[in-house]
């Protein structure tokens, strides 16, 4: 803390940061939610790896995985995970125009167009995967 202030000024007051600082403002709360969402993104990866592993070991393992996945706590966890993963993706896409400055014909492409193209790509890729899975 001594690095913080001008040298030789010893009597300043520094307000301690509350443990609950993130409840003080809506944007801080949303920020913390976004940070927490990373845990659920990690859980999605674990869940998918378990699925792939069970498929690789044959029908018995796959049926056992389906039974395990149908347990109420897993279903609830996955519903919560879906909310957080969508939240994570939306905040990530909304960040894209901040990080990317694209110019076309000497003019800056509007942020809404950059974010919109991310959402469009998300929708198209999701539709393609759904089409492939549903045997289209």
């Amino acid at each position, binding site marked *: *803390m001594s*690095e*913080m*202030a*001008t*040298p030789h*000024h010893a*009597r*300043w*007051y*520094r*307000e301690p*940061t509350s443990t609950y*600082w*993130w409840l*003080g*403002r809506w*944007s*801080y709360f949303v*920020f913390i939610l976004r*940070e927490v969402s990373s845990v659920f993104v990690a859980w999605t990866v674990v869940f998918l790896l378990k699925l792939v592993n069970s498929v690789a070991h044959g029908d018995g393992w796959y049926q056992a995985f389906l039974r395990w996945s149908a347990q109420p706590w897993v279903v609830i966890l996955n519903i919560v995970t879906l909310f957080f993963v969508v939240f994570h993706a939306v905040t990530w896409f909304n*960040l894209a125009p*901040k*990080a*990317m*400055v694209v110019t076309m014909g*000497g003019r800056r492409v509007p942020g809404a167009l950059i974010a919109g193209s991310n959402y469009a790509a998300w929708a198209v890729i999701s539709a393609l995967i759904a089409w492939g899975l549903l045997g289209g």
Partner: protein
Amino acid sequence: MADRITLQVARYRPEEESAPTFQEYEVPCHKDWVVLDALNHVKDRIDGTLSFRWSCRMGVCGSCGMSVNGEPKLTCATFLTDYAPGPVRVEPLRNFPVIRDLIVDLGDFMRKLVSVKPWLVRKEEKPLAEGEYRQTPDELEAFKPFSMCINCMLCYAACPIYGLDPKFVGPAALALAQRYNLDSRDQGSKERMEALSTHEGVWGCTFVGECTTVCPKNVDPAGAIQRYKLDAALDWVKNVVMPWGGR
């Protein structure tokens, strides 16, 4: 509308007390008065011991940043009537050590500002005889928004990361680094990248975004930092893919 309004002003007199207290002052609530006018009224007519910084009264000098009802504001641009019937709580900017009353110590920012080299870095100056460094309007526009920063420190007061980790270089210094990186006359972006592509630099930012929200000059420090992260990541990839490519 009430013709008077109560100010609750944070007082900290280090020779008398170990922590701030609040003192109330009743002041006129004229429709053309800003919070700074009210503080000057207190200073001139009610209590000459109240200490605060101000200078231009027109949102240019960046001296009068304070916390008004918990929000970082330039008090010269914050109208009393927006807070009627009151009270209006005026405190020093958060995340900075308080020297006295509403005055905070900006020494930490000043040192960090120097560390990002906020000036034009040239490998070699061209001779005066060759004339000035000319820029197109587009080249000017590339960095101009970031050059509007007035160092008012509202962004640091709004940034929880700076509050939690005082080593974080912070929004204004990073935005000003980007201001020079984007200037076509500058050749110092590599030097700055080495200093800023660090945990205390751009990677310390987790994109809360409040710095941009509170900026009175629409500088968008959050955007500057995210662009810097992208540049740093691309730089890293280039170095991995083409280690012989020279920096």
